[in-house]
């Protein structure tokens, strides 16, 4: 077992949590990510593999599905898998084994930072950040949007719980944008 310490995307050793008004913003370093893209002719096999990994059927465009291991749609025949890091550090290996050569799997854990927004009235924050229609954005929805020039995934996990995945190197810029929007809204 190696003895290197983990640094979060914001540069700390613990997750950062900010509270403002009714909203809590938390850095979520504890998740592993792996991208899955079907190879030619492996489209159906890939959806079946994702189903085996997450439980329900592979999500359609604009959606996320699963429980402990989840998948959200990222492009035609492409998904991102997500699972708790502690139990699924090598999620990409698990996925590679499951797709049996029918899809290309890439470890993406370090490519992204994840921030979660929780609280009543998240729409007021999100509508200051991206053009997603917050009147129809529901639990189970996941989409890609630009937030302060950063390509992000926005995932509605529950009525009062939204995750934003952005490029890890710009975590500080994204965090600043989220906090600014929270303070502007409340």
């Amino acid at each position, binding site marked *: 077992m190696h*003895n290197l310490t983990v640094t979060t995307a914001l540069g700390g050793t613990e997750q950062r949590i900010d509270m403002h008004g009714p909203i809590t913003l938390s850095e979520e370093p504890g998740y592993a990510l792996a991208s899955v893209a079907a190879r*030619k002719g492996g489209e159906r096999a890939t959806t079946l593999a994702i189903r085996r990994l997450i439980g329900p059927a592979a999500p359609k465009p604009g959606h996320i599905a699963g429980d402990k291991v989840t998948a959200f749609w990222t492009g035609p025949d492409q998904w991102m898998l997500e699972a708790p890091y502690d139990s699924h550090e090598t999620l990409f290996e698990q996925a590679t084994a499951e797709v049996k050569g029918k899809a*290309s799997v890439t*470890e993406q854990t370090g490519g992204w930072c994840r921030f979660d927004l929780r609280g009543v009235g998240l729409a007021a924050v999100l*509508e200051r950040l991206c053009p997603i*229609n917050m009147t129809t954005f529901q639990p189970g929805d996941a989409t890609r949007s630009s937030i302060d020039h950063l390509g992000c995934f926005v995932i509605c996990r529950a009525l009062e719980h939204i995750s934003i995945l952005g490029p890890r190197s710009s*975590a500080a*810029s994204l965090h600043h944008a989220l906090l*600014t929007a929270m303070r*502007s809204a409340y």
Partner: protein
Amino acid sequence: MSQINRLEGGQIDRSRMLNFTFDGKSYQGYAGDTLASALLANNVRLMGRSFKYHRPRGVLTAGSEEPNAIMELRDGARQEPNTRATTAELFDGLTAKSQNKIGSLRFDLMAINDRFSNFLTAGFYYKTFMWPAAFWEKVYEPIIRKAAGLGSISFQDDPDEYDRGFLHCDLLIIGAGPSGLAAALTAGRAGAQVILADEDYTMGGRLNSERFSLTDQSGAEWAAKTVKELAELPNVRVMARTTILGAFDHGIYGALERVSDHLALPEAGKPRQILWRIYTKRSLLCAGATERPIAFENNDRPGIMLAGAMRSYANRWAVTAAQNVAIFTNNDDGHKTAADLHSAGVQVAAVIDIRQDAPQSLDYEVIAGGRITNSRGRLGLTSVEVLLPDGSTRRLPCGALGVSGGWNPNVHLTSHHRGRPVWNDEIAAFCPPEECPSGLTVAGAALGNFTTAGALASGVSQANEVLESLGIKQNKIVVPQAEDGLVNMTPFWYVQGSSRAWLDQQNDVTVKDVKLSHQENFISVEHLKRYTTLGMATDQGKTSNMGGLAIMAELTGKTIPEVGTTIFRPPYTPTAIGAFAGRDRGTGFRPTRKTPSHAWAEEKGAVFVEVGMWLRAQWFPQAGESHWRQSVDREVLATRNSVGICDVTTLGKIDVQGADAAAFLNKVYCNGFAKLATGKTRYGLMLREDGIAMDDGTAARLAEDHFVVTTTTANAVSVFRHMEFARQCLWPDLDVQLISTTEAWAQYAVAGPNARKLLQKVVDSKFDLSNEAFPFMACANVTVCGGLRARLFRISFSGELAFEIAVPTRYGDAMIRRLMQAGEEFEAVAYGTEALGVMRIEKGHAAGNELNGTTSAVNLGMGRMVSKKKDSIGSTLSERSGLNTDDALKLIGLRPVDVKNPVPAGSHLITRGDPVDAAHDQGYVTSACYSPNLGYSIALAYLKSGDSRKGEILRLVSPLTGFDHEVEVVSAHFIDPEGERLRA
């Protein structure tokens, strides 16, 4: 004596007295006042000076159409020029200053311009500043620039924040007057997603300015009750202080919400304003109408205002501009003002109605068939001159005059997609065009429906039409009973015989100017606008355009619709540039990218440089180093003598997988990749379609169907995009998948003779790093520090024995610390991008300076790399004869003949004895540095036939910097030309 013009009643909060200053003098007003209403309450009629003639001006309107009462608000960095006093909400501590004057407002030295008005006519600039031509730049332009503009800016950074946002709805209702409120109620109760926006801080529109009742309550009471109900509906968003600026494509509207302008300072964390982008399925314009003046001689004195505005001041803000007022009208609406002011206890001197059949009054005199021919009063109105029907004149003392020439529907947004408004003879005004922006319909006074009952009914019916189109069940609402009087109006634009009758008070355009424009053949409405400036500037002619059109129509013998209108464009009202910028300024202009070793580098005092949004350590100064060169020289020497470590995470990394991954790379790189063995890395050059070099890097084959491609830092995104294009569009049949992994791995270069020894302390011992087991250009998945997955590449940019080690990003900080710790025994250094640059120049490696978008593989000395055995992007066009001439530029090295001289980048090379001109240019220096290993400056350069000119002495000239000395052409490989070190 304060607020002597304050009346009883109104919708102000008299329990909240507010202090403010105007031109340094203190006044009081009440919560609910605008700056204009508070000034009028304090008997301040003189509020500004006109643009050209510096004539005294007062408030003309009570809304956003105001041309005259524009001021500088606030102090210091928050000072904002050209702010309309009619829309500025009063707050405690507000400071306002008049503008466009020299001296005081009462004694403006520039008022001398008015004396020279015969010279300063329309077209003055065009005619006057023609000669002598030499005067233009040094004399005329500075004078004109100084005279131009109205207010002044602080020249300080705006301390406020501006935000932006995105909203979606089924129906956007623009304006919350009677039609807008009725429409919102209809659509809101039916369950549609509705946004109701109004520029005013109190919704209700004219309902707040009138005395009539809606069934059994006042208009203002009904409006307030309705707004309250709407605000409680979850599907309705009520946005006061929000101006819809423009109608854009596909149902998108721009909206400016003034969040904090009514406060002394924004609350902590709150923006001053928010620019919303509203996506809506349908929109309903309920923007009401703007009253138009009648032009007569000297109709611009402070105290002369629109009659509807005078009524608003009296009814909403309980203010009269003077205790003795007169009215000049061509319609019944003007009489309403007289009646309301009389009821409020203000003396009405007379109502002068141009119509012979004007309605009479028992309470005040009505002069039917009269005209106002002139006015008096230097800094404010004292009397008007009335031409009576019998031809005699009468002087009528009054302190204020309300003028009503009828009303123009606010059609602006309907024309934002170039729709031409349609003339309506019944109301003598332009109405919305048939072709409005898609999805936009109009209701109420904006449609020309000038009665309150009509406005309410049209709001309901238009909303129901929208509901039907959206498939939402219609809703029947009962609207209150309201006045439904006919609009009796006789079109009347200006009083005959007047010349200095003001049409556009903001730009000082008179009837005479329009006549001059016509005389000089500027008769097209667009020419009229440019020649006279009619309708320009902050008010965009909201109160002036119609007068100018009517006079031009008369002069040309056309009808007003034949003359036509100019095009309305966004924004509807002036908007701060800061609002358009939103959060995209300063550090928010673009995101910052930080490397995994950033915090560690900061601890070490690194100096950072921005590369492709990344912050990279440029060098690491140590104690005693006062110049960057000292740090860089030390880093270079230490690396070449022992070992150095550099964060190279920023280089683009693209994961390429699939059965056809090798075939795909064989097509995007000009050199061969199909036969690259697993576990090997190869340098690759990508060409653009036109054969010019695009980017270089390496591709490592981790498995038969798995490569990792690296790109330069700056081109990471563009190369990925290029490869995605190739994958999706050029060869969709290939089985290949791409994804960026740039940030997924923290990657460090470990370079120098002790690099292997250092890495052997970090890479787990089961991996053999010997030259035999892991030779130059090898790659492998390894583990480090007792089991952490990592990738190891034996590649070298510095020319030394070098490796790049990559670990998952979350361990990047720990890894740099571990590497530095492991390197202590070798006196390892961290090196930055400057040392990296020096070492690659010493080694003769090309970088962005050499791949500059104009050079080919031949120029780079890599012509033979372009494989002829296969087709790849750019390979065919790289064979163009123009790119392969005998004297083509070739990459070479340069050293100064006198080693004390530098060899600066950008310098040009000239054959000795040739003249220094473009025709004799032999090439240019692309990269230069001081080589601490060689002890003198060196450079890489492109030189014609450079590969066959080694040993030649050339002139290096830089006319820009004055350098002119001799350099010798040498190999670009200054260090270890045989490559023994990197293969060690």
